């Protein structure tokens, strides 16, 4: 190919029409063919997409938005089987949209600002801040209670506001938060992580083996839950049962000291940078010896690395001086906006969903536990019969964790707007991170963050919500 350069390559060179040389043609051809190839590749899924036609005109429409469940099979079942069946039985077209869990607050705010959107909106934590924008879900609660008995303590304290006496959300499910540990590695050390003391004892040995403990102290969900639960095991609580802030306590200070020791002896720097996926990835890659996470770790391992999955076992959260207290990992809370177009059907949908929860429980691979315990009968027997798990009864402990060791965020008080804001600002993991990295002493940290949280609470108290 002939060179098309001029004699000197200086700036401001005159460009003439002989630019259309073979080179240019080749380039144009390349661009064109790429367009054709892409067009062809995308045409299939572009022309496809969700068919919007219906077999016959359904009378009503119900619009739901919820998160993309980490178990894709659940979404497939929910969208294509469950709502279709329900819709047919109720003469309604049910449209389900999905959203990334992190984008939920933005979309919720947008729908409120627009005063228009979906009938049923899903949050992955109790949406106390939105209390004024939603209906009172009392009817739904009562309807399910009539059929299935009382809702669990956890769900009650997470969706009821004692000050305004309003149910600001309807929780259909929650996810227990077990301790995941590598039975083989802990076996070598000869300890079981049944208490936090044990964990601290085993930590240096495990770290030396190249398999550190993995409990996050980062601005993300897993860290939030783990640190709050750890604190409670040591007697540190954010609020008391009257929803008054009591963070600055001996229990909190003890927990901070413990966490610092655990970090120094058994963890590595990475925990300060974690996203919710990080502990999953680290454990499935074989690195971590211990993590606090829902069963997304084990379920992922079963798909990607079955040999490893067999070595991971589950236990309730280790016990501390104040006992064994754990939190839910996430909690599904549906709300019906005040401006929802179809409130009657929305309420019926939620009642029907919770009343027969077996399908959801099984299709989520035991991720979703029903907020009304009686909605899934014989839950322990089902847990024992998991087709994939080795040992087969691995998930049985979830039943125990769910009924005995799972409390709401803000225990012993309720999940109110102050807790909600503190939670979304990740103040607790930050507090622990600062102490672990030596930036603050435990006393200073407890005091400072207590003050910050008090200010937040005061603001919501003034607004009449706490």
């Amino acid at each position: 190919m002939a060179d098309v350069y001029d004699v000197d390559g200086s700036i401001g060179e005159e460009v003439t029409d002989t630019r259309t040389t073979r080179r240019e043609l080749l380039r144009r051809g390349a661009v064109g063919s790429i367009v054709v190839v892409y067009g062809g590749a995308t045409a299939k899924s572009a022309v496809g997409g969700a068919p919007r036609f219906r077999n016959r005109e359904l009378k009503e429409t119900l619009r739901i938005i919820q998160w993309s469940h980490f178990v894709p099979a659940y979404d497939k079942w929910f969208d294509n089987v469950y709502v279709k069946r329900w819709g047919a039985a109720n003469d309604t077209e049910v449209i389900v949209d999905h959203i990334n869990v992190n984008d939920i607050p933005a979309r919720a705010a947008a729908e409120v600002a627009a005063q228009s959107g979906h009938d049923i909106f899903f949050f992955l934590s109790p949406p106390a801040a939105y209390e004024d924008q939603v209906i009172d879900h009392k009817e739904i609660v009562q309807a399910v209670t009539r059929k299935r008995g009382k809702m669990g303590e956890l769900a009650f304290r997470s969706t009821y506001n004692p000050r305004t006496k309003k149910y600001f959300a309807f929780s259909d499910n929650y996810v227990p938060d077990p301790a995941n540990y590598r039975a083989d590695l802990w076996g070598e050390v000869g300890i079981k992580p049944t208490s936090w003391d044990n964990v601290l004892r085993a930590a240096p040995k495990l770290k030396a083996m190249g398999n550190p403990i993995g409990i996050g102290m980062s601005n993300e969900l897993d860290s939030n839950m783990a640190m709050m639960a750890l604190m409670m095991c040591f007697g540190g609580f954010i609020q008391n049962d009257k929803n008054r802030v009591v963070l600055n306590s001996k229990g909190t200070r003890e927990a901070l000291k413990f966490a610092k020791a655990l970090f120094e002896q058994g963890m590595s720097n990475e925990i300060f940078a974690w996203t919710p996926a990080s502990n999953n990835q680290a454990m499935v890659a074989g690195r971590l010896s211990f993590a606090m996470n829902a069963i997304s770790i084990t379920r992922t391992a079963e798909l990607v690395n079955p040999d490893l999955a067999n070595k991971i076992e589950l236990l309730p959260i280790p016990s501390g001086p104040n006992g064994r207290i754990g939190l839910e990992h996430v909690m599904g809370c549906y709300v019906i906006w005040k401006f929802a177009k179809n409130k009657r059907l929305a309420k019926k949908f939620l009642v029907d969903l919770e009343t027969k929860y077996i399908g959801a429980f099984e299709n989520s691979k035991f991720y979703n536990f029903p907020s009304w315990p009686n909605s899934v009968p014989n839950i322990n027997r089902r847990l024992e019969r998991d087709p994939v798990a080795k040992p087969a009864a691995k998930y049985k402990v979830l039943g125990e964790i769910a009924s005995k060791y799972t409390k709401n965020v803000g225990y012993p008080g309720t999940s109110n707007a102050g807790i909600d804001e503190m939670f979304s600002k990740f103040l607790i993991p930050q507090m622990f991170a600062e102490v672990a990295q030596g930036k603050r002493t435990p006393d200073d940290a407890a005091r400072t963050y207590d003050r910050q949280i008090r200010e937040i609470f005061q603001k919501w108290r003034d607004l009449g919500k706490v």
Partner: protein
Amino acid sequence: MPQRRRRNLLEERRFLAPALIAPAVIFVGLLVGAPLILSVYLSLTNATAGSLTGDFVGFDNYASQWSDPNFRTAFRNTIAFTLLANAIVVLGASVLAHFLVREFRGKWLMRFLVLLPWAAPVALSTIGFLWIFDSLFSVVNWTLKELSLVDQFNPPQWLGEPNKALAAITTVHAWRLLPFATVIMIAGLASIPKEVDDAAKVDGATGLKKLWFVTLPLQLPIATIAVLFGIVFTATDMAVVYILTRGGPFNSTQMLPMWAFQTGIQGGSLGEGAAVALFLLPVLAIVTVLMLLFARRVEVT
């Protein structure tokens, strides 16, 4: 004859100019001006959780935010990131543009590689960086470990230690803006009339002398514009921090748009969030006006 008169009307500068500008002004006025006014109103109320109304609280939101250390970190960071990233960008873009206007072998390929960061949507390319800086699978750390430059067990956490996180975020901002600034600079260089070029050659100015006395001054106005856009895009950007660190570790990498989002949307305190978002406005406005005046001043006609 009405025909004649109508044509004359359109000839009138006074009529034609506003007629041509009106659509733009209307569009922008409705889509930006009105929401802006609403945001100002919101910042003076205690609105929460997406509701567009609230009780009037005066400047309380501004005051309480100003005394919040997280806000101050966010403010400081916004200024620091913006200046640092744009300094890198303007230097890099000037150099790069200077060479990219020449002809050389492989120019098309090089330009293609340089344009890539700009062609990818920021939300997606930042996820790419999330993977590059991942706490466990970071390719940067793997390479450093292979070269035995870092501790095998405790490699640097690019997103988890405050200083490194700041560096990471600045890098991503600069990386993203460099192609954009380069293109603007190339346009500036290419628009230098040939007469000037020839005159310089006649005067005997070549190489470095030409660069300093001819090219750079002529480039100044457009370089200023490039810097201005760079500053604005960095200071008002939320995507990079949102995806990489969410303001962590312990709020050390907060930037104002991210903090506004976290306070107003995720935390539910809409009034306060609006106040935070608006804090930057006067600062940027002043910077903008100053830079535009400067650009006009140094314009060599």
